[in-house]
């Protein structure tokens, strides 16, 4: 008997004006899993995450989190419920300091000062460079450092589910490896993760399960290892 999914998405559709971006997506993420959603540019990966966080409206379909429907729940309440989202392109608050960025990540947890204090210490342990630069404006960090900041900021929201949108985008291969190592480590520490990536090889390499998204539809879903071995996936996404 499998445990009930942490996140369950049923037949989700979404539009930009008259253009349909998501054509009935169904997926689930179980507690403790690291699930990768891979697909080419424009497949609808970012739209899917935006729709889950409800910063982009769903047209139809349902999203359940811990058994409760959150399809139309306000974004700030979704964060409070435990879904924290690391947006594509980091989206750090550029003029604010690194530490302010992190503390704003704990906005939904701000009543629990002791926890925030402790968690901030953990983030600084995980990413020592952020501690070193904690007074600096976030906009002056390098791309990799901004990605670490964006992840740290989301972790300070005390996530039960972490949504990661293209963490490898625009980073040098060495940094990509570093970021993926951290993602894997976070998952091993018990954070459930839905990772959206164009870099299918790296993402599937650390994931338990994977989905392949094409033009707004899930076309494949399997264990990550099976997807890595799949001929069609290799041809389309892994460059074999």
């Amino acid at each position: 008997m499998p445990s009930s999914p942490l996140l369950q998405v049923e037949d989700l559709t979404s539009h930009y004006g008259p253009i349909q971006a998501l054509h009935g997506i169904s997926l689930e993420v179980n507690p403790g899993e690291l699930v990768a959603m891979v697909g080419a540019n424009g497949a609808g990966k970012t739209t899917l995450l935006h729709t889950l966080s409800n910063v982009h409206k769903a047209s139809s379909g349902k999203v359940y989190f811990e058994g409760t429907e959150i399809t139309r729940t306000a974004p700030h309440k979704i964060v409070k419920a435990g879904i924290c989202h690391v947006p594509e392109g980091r989206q750090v608050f550029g003029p604010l300091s690194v530490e302010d960025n992190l503390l704003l990540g704990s906005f939904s947890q701000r009543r629990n000062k002791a926890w925030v204090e402790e968690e901030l210490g953990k983030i600084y342990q995980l990413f020592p460079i952020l501690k070193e630069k904690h007074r600096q404006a976030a906009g002056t960090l390098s791309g990799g450092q901004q990605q670490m900041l964006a992840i740290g900021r989301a972790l300070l929201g005390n996530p039960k589910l972490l949504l990661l949108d293209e963490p490898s985008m625009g980073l040098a291969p060495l940094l990509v490896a570093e970021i993926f190592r951290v993602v894997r480590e976070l998952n091993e520490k018990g954070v459930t993760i839905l990772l959206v990536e164009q870099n299918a090889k790296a993402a599937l390499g650390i994931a338990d399960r994977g989905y392949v998204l094409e033009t707004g539809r899930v076309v494949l879903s399997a264990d990550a290892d099976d997807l890595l071995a799949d001929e069609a996936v290799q041809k389309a996404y892994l460059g074999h």
Partner: protein
Amino acid sequence: MFDQILQFLLTGITVGSTYALVGLGFAIIYNASDVVNFSQGEFVMIGAMSAVALSAGDSGLPLWLAAIGAVMITMLVGMALQRFAIAPARGASVVTTIIITIGASIFLRGVALVVWGKDLFPLPHFSGEDPISIGNATLLPQSIWVMGGAAALVFGAHYFFNHTTLGKAILACSCNKKAASLVGINVGIMLLVAYAMSAALGAMAGILVTPITFTSYDTGVMLGLKGFSAAILGGMGNPMGAVAGGLLLGLIESLSAGLISSGYKDAIGFIVLLLVLFFRPSGLFGKASVERV
């Protein structure tokens, strides 16, 4: 000559303090929502007029209570403006929102005209009208209230944006609304807070300065323009720049009124503004944004 200049400086700082508060209101709303709110002057007028109305007559409230009531009324007007005029136009261009706020200012002025008529109204001086001598220059006690009140409000605003979570959350909304939502900030509420704060600053400026300048339904027009100039002069979106711009504008006006011609004081103020815009389009204290991707 020196005494005269000292007198002009004192007057300039008093007037400039009012401009600074109005300019600060512009900067706060611009920062939070990218809207240039041309109703900012009307906040000043509504604050002053409400305080006059609440304290008038034998059954009127004591001045301090009337002032608190007036500030609250103005905050409600500010939040209503955001909720019913600005929020429905979400995603509209800057020009559209400017036209909306100009429309709102005409509407608010019209309502004030209907409610209070065209008369000029005073408020009593907070602590007497005996001028204080500084050398050969004089200063009204109310001027000290204006300067001190403005200084306190400016420091309060500075503290709020730099040292409180709520203040930083509003700044976060101004940098990136989507990211702010994604860390759990209720962006709609933050915008309401920003408008309420701007309205409160405007109302307090109006209440502080009305004992000296009097108020009427249309005092907001010129004060709004001056506050806007202050914000532009200092660099739009830089709250402390707006304060500096306000003080500078007050000083320029007062000195040019005294040394050149009082008839041209507004013109000279605006000429200086134009010159600054020609040579430093981002304002005196505006800085290019730092961003790396």
